[in-house]
């Protein structure tokens, strides 16, 4: 059967949702920002992009680029629910729907022509259903594989529809800069340029062995990408590979150097990590602590534990021991904790009564928080700042609508 892959990309997703919510924002340059003091632009409307406003700019830079810009504090719950509704629409067209990020999805629509018509017809129906359900526009790319489908959806925005057929591939890729391909970022583009590779056809012309020597295991894949070949399957929701780690990081409202304050944030992060791991019955044997200084220098240190853990206190203790071994050269801007080397299941039963009781306390806390909301019951140390941020409020690119990658951000 001929393989037909669709890539759906919501246009300026967060900004478009806000423009739907507030009619006064429609047609105006807006930027969605976080609620923190040190926030950045997470998405801007097309009207703002016309002035050069880009994701990642701080509010000062955005205002400089577009003095008329309106800043809107984002509401992640609104975007997550909208994303879930869009995925439900997509599942009406194929059971093979991969949620790639909060605003992008791949669909394997091979063999659905008899039900929904040709690729352009299906794309038209998808666009209409998404518009009916959410009032939002999307761009759609259809091609024989994910690599080309993603390329196609990026070619026309907003509200685009591009179909790349087998016969179009060679001509399309001939002069296409390698950086346009999904998976080839600025650093790799630079590296390829250093060996004289600027276009996809130049990349395809190189020998696989040379690329392997230069780029290691991805060398062969790079050659295939240059030829527009991609065998990666659409991985439907629920069939994603097991999570290799569970982690949270937090850009602090202000740089902190006070050890006591740092410890408090580590406890909060440990609880968030432990809570999520416990919900999915996962444990990790390695605990990592990530620290970012105000100059953006970032480093991580890891500790391997004798047994796998998901107990907040065990994660916290490991993070503390890493912190205690570090001599911080300045205040910290960001803290992150993750557990990895994961295993599933409860593992060995506790031998001592004290450990069993600790588990019971955690179970009781988790049960209350599941029913009444996160941090309803929490650690005494965290009680004196109940209004504090529980995360930077940024939706991670790895966010998924279900499973352990589902994070309830503010």
């Amino acid at each position, binding site marked *: 059967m001929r393989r037909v892959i669709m890539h759906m990309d919501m246009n300026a997703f967060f900004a478009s949702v806000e423009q739907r919510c507030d009619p006064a924002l429609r047609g105006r340059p807006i930027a969605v920002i976080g609620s923190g003091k040190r926030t950045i632009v997470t998405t801007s409307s097309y009207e703002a992009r016309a002035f050069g406003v880009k994701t990642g700019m701080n509010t000062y830079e955005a205002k400089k680029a577009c003095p008329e810009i309106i800043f809107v504090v984002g509401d992640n*719950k*609104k975007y997550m629910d909208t994303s879930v509704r869009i995925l439900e629409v997509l599942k009406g067209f194929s059971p093979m729907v991969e949620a790639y990020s909060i605003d992008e999805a791949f669909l394997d629509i091979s063999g659905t022509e008899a039900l929904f018509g040709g690729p352009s017809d299906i794309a038209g129906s998808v666009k209409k259903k998404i518009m009916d359900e959410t009032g939002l526009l999307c761009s759609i790319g259809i091609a024989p594989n994910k690599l080309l489908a993603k390329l196609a959806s990026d070619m026309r925005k907003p509200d685009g529809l591009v179909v790349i057929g087998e016969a179009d591939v060679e001509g399309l890729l001939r002069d296409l800069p390698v950086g346009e391909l999904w998976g080839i970022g600025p650093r790799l583009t630079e590296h390829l340029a250093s060996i004289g590779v600027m276009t996809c056809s130049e990349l395809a012309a190189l020998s696989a062995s040379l690329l392997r020597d230069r780029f290691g295991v991805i060398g062969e894949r790079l050659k295939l990408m240059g030829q527009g070949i991609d065998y990666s399957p659409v991985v439907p929701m629920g069939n994603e590979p097991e999570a290799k780690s569970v982690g949270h990081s937090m850009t602090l409202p202000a740089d902190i150097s006070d050890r006591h304050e740092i410890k408090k944030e580590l406890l909060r992060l440990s609880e968030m990590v432990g809570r999520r791991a416990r919900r999915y019955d996962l444990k990790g044997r390695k605990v990592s602590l990530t620290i970012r200084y105000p100059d953006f220098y970032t480093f991580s240190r890891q500790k391997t534990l004798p047994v796998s853990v998901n107990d907040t206190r065990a994660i916290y203790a490991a993070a503390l021991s890493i912190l205690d071994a570090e001599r911080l050269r300045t205040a910290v801007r960001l803290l992150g904790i993750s557990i990895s080397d994961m295993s599933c299941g409860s593992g060995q039963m506790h031998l001592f009564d004290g450990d069993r009781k600790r588990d019971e306390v955690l179970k009781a806390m988790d049960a209350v928080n599941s029913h009444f909301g996160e941090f309803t019951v929490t650690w005494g140390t965290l009680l004196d700042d109940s209004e504090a941020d529980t995360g930077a409020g940024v939706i991670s690119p790895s966010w998924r609508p279900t499973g352990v990658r589902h994070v*309830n951000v503010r």
Partner: protein
Amino acid sequence: MTIDIKEIVTVVAVFDKGMRPAKFKWNGRVYSVKEVTYEWKSMQGSAQVHHFSVTDGASLYELSYNPSTFVWILEGVE
């Protein structure tokens, strides 16, 4: 800019292929909902809360309804 209100309000809602607020009473004044501009859901613990962005033609309001407590809250006003 949205101003947080977070006050319980009395709402008249229409149930017809879903639910939508038609009027709400806040601080003794009745506001007629001219348009529901957007709606979404969120989880508060185990409760699924319904959120509505609504306008009376002059301002934009966010209302939320928690079906487990039957409580409507005026979350904020623009």
